[in-house]
Structures are given as C-alpha cells and as structure tokens.
C-alpha cells in the first residue's frame, strides 16, 4: 500500500507553531510553578534571586501561553477543517460512533484504528477538556497574579475569580490541574506514537511538517 499513499497538508503553520509554543510553555510553567509551590532549591546567600527568577520565568511563560491560546482559538475559526473548532464537539451520531470505536481501539477491544486525517472524535473531545483545563490554568493564574497587580486587564483575565474562590483554594486547583496536564502529556505522546505505529500515517512527523499520509480509508478527507 505504501506506494499508493498521498499526502494531505493537515496541520497548518499556526497549529504547529502554537503546539510547540505550548510544549515549551508547559515545561517552563510546570518546573517554575512546582518551585513556587515547593521551593526545592535554597539560596546560600541573600544576593541570590532564585524565587525572583522562577516567578519571572513563570509570568513570562504565562503570557506566552495566553498568546498561544489566543492564536489557536483564532485559527479554530480561520484555519482548515482539521483545525476547526467543530472537531472539539463530536456529539453527532456518527461522531459518537467514532468516539467509541477509537476508545475500543485504544483498549484492545478492536483492532481497527480510527482512520482520520485530523483528530478523531475521542481526540477532539479530549482536546476540548484539555483546552478547558488550559483556560482554568490561565484564569486561576491571573487571579493569583491580580492580587498584587491591580489593573483592569488582570481583573478581567482572572481577578474576578478571587472572591468566588478563596486564594488558597485557587492555588490548590492551579497546582492539581498541573498534574492532570502532565498526565495528559504522557498519554498524548504515548497514544500518538501508538496510533502512528498502527496506522502508519506519519502522525508523529506531522506535528513537525504538517503532512499526514492517507491510506484511502479516512472518513474526513
């Protein structure tokens, strides 16, 4: 079958760009965020500025992450059909069938991979949850930031949450969701590799160059 393959340009530049910005930001935010919650390094001299630097990196990465999120949402309306926001809401009858087919494939209950060029229904729904978690991290993060950065912009980005939730509770969930996102990252990388190895569609490479190979069985070309 290999010689019959065609390429489809699935992931446009903004999708790949925001994906890798997210990777960098999530790594930076997790490491520095973990330090802010549990300072694991101790300064020997008062001239050091460890917590100061950790917080600075955390805040810069937070702004980059917010910008990446804005670009991705913009592209959900402007990009191709694989980037379209509709893939996050797979609630039609056909899509729900695809959702359970994919679930069965991952749980070894079926040997038939969910052949799609873009996200299959299970992946689309997972990204909906992940984006909601991203939004929670951004809002709760800016809520914590707003306590000593008074201004309308920070009030709008997250300050409104203070008062609805007490500050220690916001901190708790901001911390817990980080672990959920780390767990997601493990699953995400593993199943990307697993799907690639079963579907042989160049999935792992597609996030670098944007192209996916099609086998002719895809339902969404």
């Amino acid at each position, binding site marked *: 079958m290999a010689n019959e393959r065609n390429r489809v340009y699935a992931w446009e530049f903004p999708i790949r760009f925001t994906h890798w910005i997210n990777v960098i930001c999530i790594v930076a935010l997790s490491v520095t965020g973990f330090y802010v*919650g549990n300072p694991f390094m101790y*300064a020997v001299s008062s001239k050091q500025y460890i917590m*100061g630097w950790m917080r600075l990196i955390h805040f810069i990465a937070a702004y980059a992450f917010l910008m990446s999120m804005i670009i991705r949402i913009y592209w959900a309306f402007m990009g191709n059909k694989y980037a379209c926001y509709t893939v996050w809401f797979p609630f039609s009858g056909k899509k729900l069938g695809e959702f359970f087919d994919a679930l069965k494939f991952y749980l070894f209950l079926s040997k038939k991979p969910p052949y799609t060029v873009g996200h299959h229904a299970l992946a689309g729904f997972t990204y909906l949850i992940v984006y909601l978690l991203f939004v929670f991290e951004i809002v709760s993060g800016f809520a914590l930031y707003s306590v000593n950065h008074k201004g309308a912009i920070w009030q709008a980005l997250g300050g409104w949450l203070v008062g609805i939730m007490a500050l*220690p509770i916001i901190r708790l969930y901001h911390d817990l969701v980080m672990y959920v996102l780390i767990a997601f990252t493990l699953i995400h990388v*593993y199943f990307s590799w697993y799907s690639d190895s079963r579907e042989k569609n160049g999935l792992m490479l597609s996030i670098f160059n944007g192209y996916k190979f099609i086998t002719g069985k895809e339902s969404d070309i």
Partner: protein
Amino acid sequence: MNFSDDALHKIAESMEPLSQKGVSRRDFMKFCATMAAILALPASFIPKIAEAISGKKPYLVWLEFQDCAGNTEALLRATKPTAAKIILDILSVDYHETIMAPAGHQAEKSLMDVVKNQKGNYLVVVEGSIPMKDGGVYCCISGKSAVDIAKEVCGNALATIAVGTCAAYGGIPAANPNPTGAVGVKEAVPNATVINLPGCPVNVENITACVVHFLTFGSLPNTDKFGRPYFAYGKRIHDNCERRAHFDAGQFVRQWGDEAHRQGWCLYEMGCKGPETFKNCPTVKYNEGTSWPVQAGHGCIGCAEPNFWDTMTPFYRRLPSVPGVSIETTADKVGAGLVAATAAGILIHGIGRALSPKKEEE
C-alpha cells in the same frame, strides 16, 4: 512639620478639653500625625484631624455577640495614653458590656436611650458573630436574640464598624460545620451601613483611624469588595513583609527552630498565609507597634480573610488539603500519584500491545 499660625491656633484650641484629662500636646500631635499616616493623608491634614476630633463628641455603643472579647482586649491593651485613651475621650461610649459600670436593666436602658434619642446619629461597634439558626436562640442578651438586637441597634445607626473577623464574616463560630448558623453583621442586617475591620483581633489603630476618618470627612473610608477599608486592607501582607527579601532570594525556613528560622528567613514553606492575606500588619503591627506574628517568627494565618478557618487551614502547610482524601495527603502527593498511575497505565498498555497480534482485522 511647619503649620501656619492659624493651624497652630486651631490645634491649641482643640487641645484644651484633652489637656485637662492628662493628654499632653505632644501626645495629641503624635496621635493626629499617626492617624494621618495610617489613612495615607498628607501632613496638611493633621490640623484638620486635630480640629475634627476635638470638636464633636459622637455617641458610640459597643455590642458583643458570639465573641471572645479579644477585640475589646486589643483596645484596652494600650500602654501609653494614646490611641485608646484619646478615642475613649473623644467618643461618648454609652454602652460596652465588658467595661461599662451599669448592669442589668440600667445598662440596657442606656443602650435603648442612645437608639431612641440619637436615632440615625450614633456609631455602633460590633464584636462577635450573629447566630441565625433556630431563630437566633444561640446568643441572647437580656432576653433578646443577637440578631434582633443587631437589627434594632445597627439598623438605626449612622454607621456600624464590624471589628474582628467574627463580626465581619462570621469568623471562628462560622467555621464548618457552623452549628449556630453564625454570620457577620452585614449579612444579618443587610440594610445597615457597615464597614468591616476583620482580623483576630482587630488592630486598634485601624478602628481609631476609621473613627477619625469619619469625624474628619463625615463619611466612612472607601472599601474593597469584602467591605474592608483600603487604607488598612488594600495591600497584601506578603508585599510589605520585612522577610520578603528572603522569599525573593530563595531563603526559607524548613523546620521550626532550624538555622534559617534563627536567621529570620521567610516562613513561606512553614505555611505562612501572607501571600493570601490583605492587611497592614507589617506596617502598623500590634500592641502599639511592638510586633506582629511574622516578626515574632510565626507565619501569618490569614485571620483577616473571609472564612479563614476553613480556607487558610492547615495553617502550617502551603496548600489546603485535597477534598475527599485523607487530611495528611498533600496536593503534591495526590498529583504525583496521578502521574505515576498514568505512567503505569501506559506501561501496561505497552505490554498489552506487545502481546497482541500485529495485524489489523479486516
């Protein structure tokens, strides 16, 4: 400070009634300057404050409900003839259960006299929370429930100052499971004009500054969304903390009594709630500027925040406990467990993949 002759004349005039009571001119000026500083007013307001607080003598009643009298203690702990003495001299305190001379019907009559005769003109200080459950039976004074007293006294007052976290938000009596249905004054009497001065106890300087602001400008100071005046609760403890430099450097106390603790490093890891708490403790301090918890080597417990007993605990840990799991389990243990479980799941899935046939069923 240089004042005009006119201003000095005014001060001299306003001093007369107080000097007869043993408050020296120097003490009085220090008091006025302190009040201007706490309220973040320029020095030109000092003569205005001096004039305002020596002219009128507003009526004030002090009510105690579900409380420990800790705020009264804080008020009476003044060691020098400053804040407390002056405030007691410039106010006509007509009812205060802990310190008043009359008792029984006589005492209740003096309270009702103020409510009737000075309707809409007197100030109320409330200390302690108000129980609402079962018709308010859990706190009754002279046959009346706290909520009925509060509705009558605070409802007819010019303004109510809720001192301490209990009067402001329910405080410790309102902590989960809140058996008496305790609430703060504003919740019990929604139509009253209330300013909240939470803290456990309240800082006397802040009560005094509120009253002085009221006497000087004829209005209560501006408040945040929790009803707390900005002059005292506008800044976060963490941002004004004397140990903040150790936080930024990365120097933390890891155990009580360790070398870092003896060096006075940051108490962040010991669960200090300074980053979550808004109050002027680091600058105004307690007991006439003697000290405050962090200076004494103990972390902040966030006592000035609504529901602090439920949201700021455990006091000696950075984050609250994760709901639904054992109280000894920290958020990071839960998170690490989640990640470990995911990794284990992936490993099992990988083994399953290795064992299952490679070919796809057509």
